[in-house]
């Protein structure tokens, strides 16, 4: 337990000492939401719609970069190998990174919620806010697994590049920046194969803007994708050893 606390503390210190990675992942979602959801908002329901999707976007940053770039870098430098040779608690490193990721996900979400509530005119009952928060945090699961797969299989330079492509690709194709119904039909089809799309649909269902599919379909899709990604992460882990 003591080791896990220390491990988490070390992860948090490392993250806040790299503001060049931390600030963009924390500020970009909030800045984009302010611009597209509030300032340039046209329809009356836009602020609530984009609150649901930008929340998923906010969680995606720390999850994909924290794991893809962070793990890739530390594996590259041999740190991960040393960790496996010393009596560090098994999985302590991963668990500490997940706790840190969730913490920074919360830090990225809070300003978006505040802006939505105070400036976007989004009014929701307390339990809906909580439900939304829950779905947004759960979004971390598939993205962390994507980050882990990248971090275990790429060297640190490639991990940065590929993480950026995956991050932007999932954000745009999943309809986190602009609603999917505004896309041409081919892109709408592609969207259905991204976890970001289904997570956004689930969040939309909670704020009552309604997705295109039943939530059960979205939930099962996310579950299947997460299992596939878990398999990928495990095989990447085994291959790198």
């Amino acid at each position, binding site marked *: 337990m003591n*080791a896990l606390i220390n491990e988490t503390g070390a992860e948090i210190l*490392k993250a806040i*000492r790299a503001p060049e990675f931390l600030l963009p992942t924390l500020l970009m979602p909030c800045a984009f939401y302010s611009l597209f959801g509030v300032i340039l908002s046209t329809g009356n329901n836009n602020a609530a719609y984009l609150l649901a999707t930008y929340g998923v976007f906010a969680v995606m940053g720390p999850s994909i970069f924290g794991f893809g770039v962070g793990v890739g870098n*530390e594996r590259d430098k*041999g740190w991960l190998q*040393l960790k*496996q040779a010393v*009596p560090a608690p098994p999985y302590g490193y991963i668990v500490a990174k997940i706790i840190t990721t969730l913490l920074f996900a919360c830090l990225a979400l809070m300003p978006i919620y505040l802006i939505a509530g105070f400036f976007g005119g989004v009014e929701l009952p307390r339990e809906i806010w909580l439900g939304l928060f829950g779905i947004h945090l759960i979004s971390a699961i598939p993205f962390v697994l994507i980050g882990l797969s990248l971090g275990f299989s790429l060297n640190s330079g490639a991990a940065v590049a590929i993480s950026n492509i995956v991050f932007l690709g999932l954000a745009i194709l999943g309809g986190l920046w602009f609603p999917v119904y505004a896309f041409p039909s081919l892109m709408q089809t592609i969207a259905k194969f991204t976890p970001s799309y289904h997570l956004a649909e689930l969040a939309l269902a909670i704020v009552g803007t309604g997705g295109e599919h039943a939530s059960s379909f979205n939930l099962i899709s996310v579950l299947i994708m997460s299992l596939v990604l878990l398999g990928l992460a495990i095989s990447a882990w085994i291959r790198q050893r």
Partner: protein
Amino acid sequence: MNTALKTTQLSVRFGNKFALNSIDLSIAASGVTALLGANGAGKTTLINCALGLCKPSSGTVQLFSKTPGEIEAKKLIGVMLQDSALPDLLSPREHIQLFSSYYPNPLSLKQLSQRCGLESFVDKRYKTLSGGQKRRVQFALAIIGQPKIVFLDEPTTGLDIDARNLVWNTINELRHTGTAVLLTTHYLEEADSLADHTVVMNNGEIIANDSTEHIRAAASGAVIQCESTLDLNIIAALDDVRSVKMRGRKIAISSRNATTSLAALLALDPKLSNLTVSKSSLEDAFKQLTDNSKTTGDSA
């Protein structure tokens, strides 16, 4: 003899190349042992097997009768890996704090700072430290858990003389506190001045395993170098000649007794030129051992 590390018929194969080929080795639970060999000889693979980082293709490894990789085995060892950088953004103090939470009886920051000379940079970020300072921090993490055996993979590669001396002194201190040390090196000088016991590896096999003194003695005598028109087989048959080979244009003769070999040589070829005679070092022993293993079955 108490055994720290024991391998039986240990083989590791990458593709169809043997990184380790049927290694039988026992390392005592005290004293300093050097694993000596050129790059690619299998030293790091052997260490990685002892740490549980590398699975044997066949054979067994035991660490104090435990399986490497088990948490109980890990608590008994200290590790300094080759090219293993610590996270850049933490200070030595923070690294030490994290690692001390892994072990039941860790050394305190103060004890470690004194033993490894960390006082002046304990709060600086790791990335701002010099190469020697970084190595000292890695060394501190290797001994923090008061291990029974410390594995040091190339502990002084790339260090300047001051930093190297500091590591050497600390290894000697470990010897005096009864901690076993297994270090890999391709510096013969390092094995020569630090190790009680030397294991020489070549191409995934152990080609010598003896006290450092014996290994040096095996090569005692001299190396005679000269240019001569004599046939190598004739020279090889001379008194006290151990082996003969060409080194560039020169003939290198390893001899048990320089005086007798040289007298016989000069009698056969009075016109030989560019003659040098030098005392053989551990390096010669090492060269001879690796050459012999390359040309097993050769008459030379």
